[in-house]
């Protein structure tokens, strides 16, 4: 049943927004307030988990440069416990962060949804057409779900990714300024490529959603009218028409598939080029004695550490936009003036 409604919200997403993000976020924060404690814990955990996560490659560098290459095995005595602590802390902080964010996200969304449900009881709907009713229904369900997904994944990724990226950059700059600058030089290009491709793949995806909505509508109608189809012995014609609708759906999906299959390979290529840049310049630096082998290996690992979060972040921006659009519509409904208030049932009269 969610098919056609999802199409509604896809259409609405195209609509211009009127309220600024700042206002919406401030208002959204009112719902987060009861969970302030959880939020503080979560943010601290996010920062600490990124930091401990970033320490692992650095610990590898120490092992390669100071132990494996020199043979001073005695250093393992402090290296092993330290490494174990870093890894365990990282696990613990991630655990806290995921769990706390989940508690906040689910409760906030459910509070908004409940408020809308109560509101719906008092809005007079007899002046709305059927399609408008469909759109109104989509709000507490689809829009709230958009927001939920954003709070669950998007918001957390923004925090986690930003701190991982920044942390990786800082450590890389500390390891070697020049190589860090070279390694980061290709980042803007990578962002542009991924962003453009992401835009195309989202557009293609939206198109599949709308053809799916068409397919769902066809199915809904044919099943609702199945007794009439059978009464008039039109089963074969209906099947033929359904198959045509399906073929349209397949066609739209084929195009979307082409675009979405391109996404991963392009990201891989961009990353490999980044690795090659680091190896090319890094080897020269190692030969010059400017950096150690361990530093070069650490750079390659840090490239992994910031590259995937970077890609994530580019994609989250879209999630953020649709979540904000959803929030705006949700608040719209909460703020809707009750134009016609039904009299209390005791004195209400039903006219036939």
């Amino acid at each position, binding site marked *: 049943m969610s098919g056609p409604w999802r199409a509604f919200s896809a259409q609405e997403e195209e609509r211009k927004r009127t309220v600024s993000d700042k206002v919406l976020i401030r208002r959204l924060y009112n719902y987060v307030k009861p969970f302030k404690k959880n939020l503080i814990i979560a943010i601290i955990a996010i920062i600490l988990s990124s930091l401990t996560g970033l320490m*692992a490659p650095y610990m590898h560098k120490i092992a390669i440069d100071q132990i494996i290459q020199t043979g001073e095995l005695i250093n393992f005595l402090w290296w092993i416990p330290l490494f*174990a602590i870093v890894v365990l802390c990282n696990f613990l902080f991630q655990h806290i962060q995921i769990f706390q964010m989940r*508690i906040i996200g689910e409760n906030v969304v459910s509070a908004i*949804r409940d408020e809308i*449900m109560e509101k719906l009881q008092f809005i007079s*709907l007899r002046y709305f057409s059927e399609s408008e009713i469909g759109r109104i229904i989509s709000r507490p369900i689809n829009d709230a779900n958009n927001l939920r997904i954003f709070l669950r994944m998007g918001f957390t990724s923004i925090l986690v990714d930003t701190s991982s990226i920044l942390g990786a950059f800082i450590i890389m700059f500390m390891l070697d300024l020049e190589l860090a600058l070279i390694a980061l030089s290709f980042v803007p290009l990578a962002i542009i490529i991924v962003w453009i491709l992401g835009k195309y793949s989202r557009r293609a995806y939206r198109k599949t959603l709308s053809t799916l909505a068409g397919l769902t509508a066809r199915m809904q109608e044919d099943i609702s009218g199945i007794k009439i189809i059978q009464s*008039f012995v039109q089963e074969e014609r209906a099947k033929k028409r359904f198959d045509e609708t399906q073929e349209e759906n397949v066609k739209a999906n084929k195009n979307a598939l082409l675009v979405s299959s391109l996404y991963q*390979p392009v990201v891989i290529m961009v990353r490999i080029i980044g690795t090659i840049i680091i190896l090319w310049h890094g*080897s020269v630096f190692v030969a010059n004695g400017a950096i150690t*082998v361990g530093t070069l290996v650490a750079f390659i690992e840090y490239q992994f550490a910031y590259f995937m979060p970077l890609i994530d972040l580019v994609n989250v921006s879209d999630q953020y936009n649709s979540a904000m659009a959803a929030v705006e519509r949700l608040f719209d409904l909460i703020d809707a003036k009750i134009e016609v208030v039904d009299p209390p049932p005791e004195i209400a009269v039903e006219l036939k």
Partner: protein
Amino acid sequence: MSVEKPLLEYIYSLKPKKSFSESVIAFKRLIKYHKRYIPIIILTITLSLVRTYLFVLEPLYTSQIIDEVLIGGKQDRLLEYLMLILLTGAGFAAVNFFVNYLNGLLALFIIRDIRSDYYASLQSKSFSFYDSMPVGDLVSRATTDLQAVDAFLRTWISILCNAVFSVIVFFSIMYSVSPSMTLISILPMPLIFYFTTRLWVDTMPLFRIMQLILGRLSSYIQQNIVGMKTVRIFRREKDMVEGFKKAEQKFVETAIMAGRIQSIYMPLPTAILTLSIAMVYVYATVSIFNFGAAITVGSIILFARYMMRLSFPLRDLSMLLGNWINAYAGLERIFEVIDTPVSVEDAPDAEEIIIREGSVEFQNVTFQYANGRPVLKNLSFKVNPGEKIAILGATGSGKSTLINLIPRFYDATSGRILIDGIDIRKFKLSCLRRQIGIVPQDVFLFSGTIRDNIAFGKPDASMEEVVKAAELAKIRDFIESLPDGYDTFVGERGVTLSGGQRQRITIARAILTDPKILIMDDSLSFVDAKTEHEIQTAIEEAMRGRTTFIIAQRLSTIRNADRIMVLEDGEIVEFGTHEELMARSGIYRKIYETQFLSKSETPLAEVDSE
């Protein structure tokens, strides 16, 4: 009436279900759908193998750069290795594209085939099936449930190949470098696989439950809004909201439960992997310096990177298992419908028979539903060709069932129905139904033009036939007053027609095929006087020259019928002309007088059903 009870009962009945052994049959059946696409599958598997091979090379070249160029000082080989990395990387990306595309294509085709089978099976299901299945549920099987199957199909071959090939290739390379280090590197893999499997297998059913709750909440809100009037009259607003909140609570609890599982099993494999890499470091260093093992720095880093790379296909495999659990749940619901037996079918000796007269005879007809409640009890009567029978009775008296037996929408449990003296089971179903015109209670129109709807039973009808049917149904003037005339679009996105207009279109639709027998379920009760009159005229025109059964609401219709049948609890209590029934002081006379005295046109049959 309790508005929130069904919702809550449903939601509390949702339990995570995960049994791989039970899913084998569904899996075998899904595999059958792959048969048509064997070439695509073979190509996918071959390319997957190439992909794994290319995936292995990049870390290998990196480690050679470290050993030969950085430590060995052979600067001239750097460019060569970098070119190799670029080429294998490009190859990997290209192959990756084709694998993703082919796998997606396969999923697209198979989903289409399953949906097509599902739709075809729905076409032949009998009315009793639809009585017990809500439309929304049937639609969601073909959409939401199939989406879960799609998620599985989209990746399953490539993930499975990748996991198997990766394990083989990575281990053979690692083994050739250092057998003892390989052993240490293997150790964490089963653990990683176990924990990620726990992650997906435990959370996927929860996600599904969440999705199901959301779906149910949608229809709950819809009912709430559409039924707002009823809800308000009975002051059930509080209960509605309470029900919603309870369902919502269950949703939040499930989501947080999933969050708890994720918060443990999501970071755990990474922690295990990182610790094991440290173990490899320690082991390698100790063996080099204490036992003089021939392990290079490059190969240690190679091992670390291979361990990391190997963990990805294993994690994908775990996710695939989670996807399968949901896909299986979806498949089960689809196959359940496909496998529901058809209860009304052509008899082996069924023939094409033309109805010449149009007499209808019931001989000791009894009908009961599967649960045993008899709806019609031993009915016998005979209707002459061209006779108009008005059927009267309260809701549940069996009047709808009676008319549904004639075109065999249901089969009588016992007894026979004869048309022109021939048992209706001797007719081919399509042949029987084509010769019976039906105006259903539900004034349902398909989205399309008015012409499409009127000519629904005979798509190749000429324009003259359509106009003639519209004329007879007293809707012609209205249609021709529309700007687009017969090409006016009706249905969800078209013009909105009143109930009376819709009903006349359904009458036109039924008479266009010129049936010998006409069945009308005239339930449209609340219309204004002018429409009332027009519908009455349309009905009379439609009935002319046909044997007609009409479930009548209007006094005028009933009085104009040749005979009136009064049903009560599945039995005929009175059957005769208006005059005959008025002469007996039975139910009919009582109802008629009540109505007549109140001078209202309140429909008779609905008197005790409101």
